[in-house]
């Protein structure tokens, strides 16, 4: 899947809570518990509304000292993982 042209948003099926310095996410269908921290939380936070990959990359570059290319690679990998786990869905 070419991520660059897609938009992403939190799956409405998920339930989540911020606890201590982490975010705990539950996916009802798989009944799995996922824990994200650090920059992952920043990404999760902005996925409340549909976002393009480049918007998320821009956000991360503003928050962390990281090159655009490095941020793009990391965000792509992270988003793909969230999509595979059905935590995030692709919006057309």
């Amino acid at each position, binding site marked *: 899947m070419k991520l660059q042209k897609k938009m992403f948003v939190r799956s*409405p099926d998920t*339930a989540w809570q911020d*606890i201590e310095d982490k975010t705990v996410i539950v996916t009802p269908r798989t009944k799995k518990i996922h824990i994200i921290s650090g920059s992952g939380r920043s990404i999760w936070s902005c996925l409340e509304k549909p976002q393009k990959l480049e918007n998320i990359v821009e956000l991360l570059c503003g928050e962390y000292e990281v090159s655009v290319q490095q941020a793009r690679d990391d965000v792509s990998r992270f988003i793909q993982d969230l999509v595979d786990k059905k935590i995030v869905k692709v919006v057309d």
Partner: protein
Amino acid sequence: MRIFKTTLCIGGISILLESSSKDFIKSIKSKYNNFLSFVEEDNYFKIVFSQGKFLKKDEGIIVKRDGSNYSIKGEGFCGYLDIKRKTALVNISFKENVFNLFLRIFYSLILPFYEGFLIHSAGLKKGDDSYILSGPSSSGKTTAARLADREFCILSDELVIIRKMWGVFTAFATPFPGEFTGCIKNDKAALKGLFFLNKNLIVPYAIKSRLETLVSLLENIFFFCPDSESNRLIFNICGEITNKIRGYDINILYYSDFGRIMYEITEENVCPQP
């Protein structure tokens, strides 16, 4: 056709059971004697049972939700449950173990709407306080219940109901036993400690962080529904519990009187970390 009835109260939620089979209702009255309800209520769930024959072995338990309706299918029963109307129609093979499995699933589905859930755990009550010792199969729930039998009132050795009642998280006894052969009475008490059985723990007990407690709670909840609303309700209740009640890993093999230790460590650690 004559209809026979009885009422059970489990976890503070009453259910009126109806069937045309006198023997079926009679056997429920006999086997669930401690959970019979004699209070006239108009706020109960009504479950109508009819006898069914199930020749094929089903493929596990299947629960589907459509609005306020659930369709439930398991080994020996199938039916529909309407959460809003508080009614259920169930076709069931009239065997006690099948009825017990149906009840477990029924309560696991309705409890999130009553700020509660069923959790794999032994439940122990002493005075006004209760403790749960939670864990999967073979983790030692029945052993804990047997060891604590003299000192504590046993709420269950398999599945305990936890509900928020008037702002207080309360553990309820259930008629869902594992291997415990002692008498389980319909009792409840304010929940004071969440203990997670861990045979690999190299110290007698260890305080869990709020996050660890939440994850352990979620891992041990008895639940079949795949819909997001119920899961969100359970998730929120668990989050609230971890704000108020501390969780511990415990290895009961370290103690001859782990009940006293449970009491002492929950007294010492009243307020959880924010």
